[in-house]
């Protein structure tokens, strides 16, 4: 089809299109139906993270593996306890990453 013929079909289609609808009270009706916006509240997440970290520290602070591993890690020695500690941290980070990606995918699919 040539560009001229294409334009002719476009013109016919545009002529048959009634264009934007007049308001007819639609906006006023719509504005009355709008619910209050849900505001993002950050403090429950921050409080949850802080409580989780504190609980984790209190639970593990007396464990010898944790203390030895932390001491060796800070002094630069890659001992078995330090490696265990690092592997545990890497595992938790990986799980968190996978969970976050799944949540982001689920949110995108819903939108």
């Amino acid at each position, binding site marked *: *089809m040539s560009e001229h*013929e*294409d334009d*002719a*079909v*476009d013109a*016919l*289609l*545009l*002529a*048959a*299109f*009634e*264009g*934007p*609808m*007049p*308001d007819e009270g*639609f*906006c006023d*009706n*719509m*504005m009355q*139906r*709008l*619910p209050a*916006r*849900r*505001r*993002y509240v950050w403090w429950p997440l921050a409080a949850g993270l802080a409580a989780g970290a504190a609980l984790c520290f209190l639970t593990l602070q007396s464990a010898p593996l944790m203390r030895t591993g932390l001491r060796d890690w800070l002094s630069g020695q890659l001992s078995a306890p330090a490696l265990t500690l690092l592997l545990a941290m890497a595992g938790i980070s990986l799980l968190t990453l996978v969970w976050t990606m799944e949540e982001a995918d689920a949110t995108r699919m819903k*939108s």
Partner: protein
Amino acid sequence: MTDSAVQARVDQALVARVLLADDRRAFEQLLRRYQGMVRAQLRRLLNGDHAKADDLAQETFLLAWRKLDQFRGDARFSTWLHRIAYTCFLQARRKPSWPSDQHDHDDGQQAEPSQAMDLHLDIARAMQRLSHAEQTVLLHCVQLGMSHSETAYVLAMPLGTVKTHAAQGKAKLRALLADWQDRKEEAS
């Protein structure tokens, strides 16, 4: 700066006012700017059912209000709205209560064009002889004035498929309307 770029910046400023200041009047401005085209899109998709189209338009703007924080500005705000509207239309069409006569009109069993009909009816009849996908692509590409890539975004369709449907739809329309014009010439 082009007119569409200015419009896009105005839209983004209004969206920011809604999100940052919870400004309902900013959303009302967005609503007034785009309700006409969104309702026109839905009326066309629903074959002129004004009541159902307005119900879906309300659903569209309620969703836009709730999900406004997900608007990233990658597409124009109007394109984003049209995408939500089309998604609402598809969801409504999937419901069991959807009337069967509102499905695709690609069965090819249409009445012969009549000389007594005006241009609008002739084109409406010609459009009904296209497949649903061709009709939808031409509605967005030509009548709503979107680019091929914007149409692909709204319809969640590959760009190449949009171009193919647009070309095929126009070719069919040209043949159908030319046939009608030939008959008119023969009769006169």
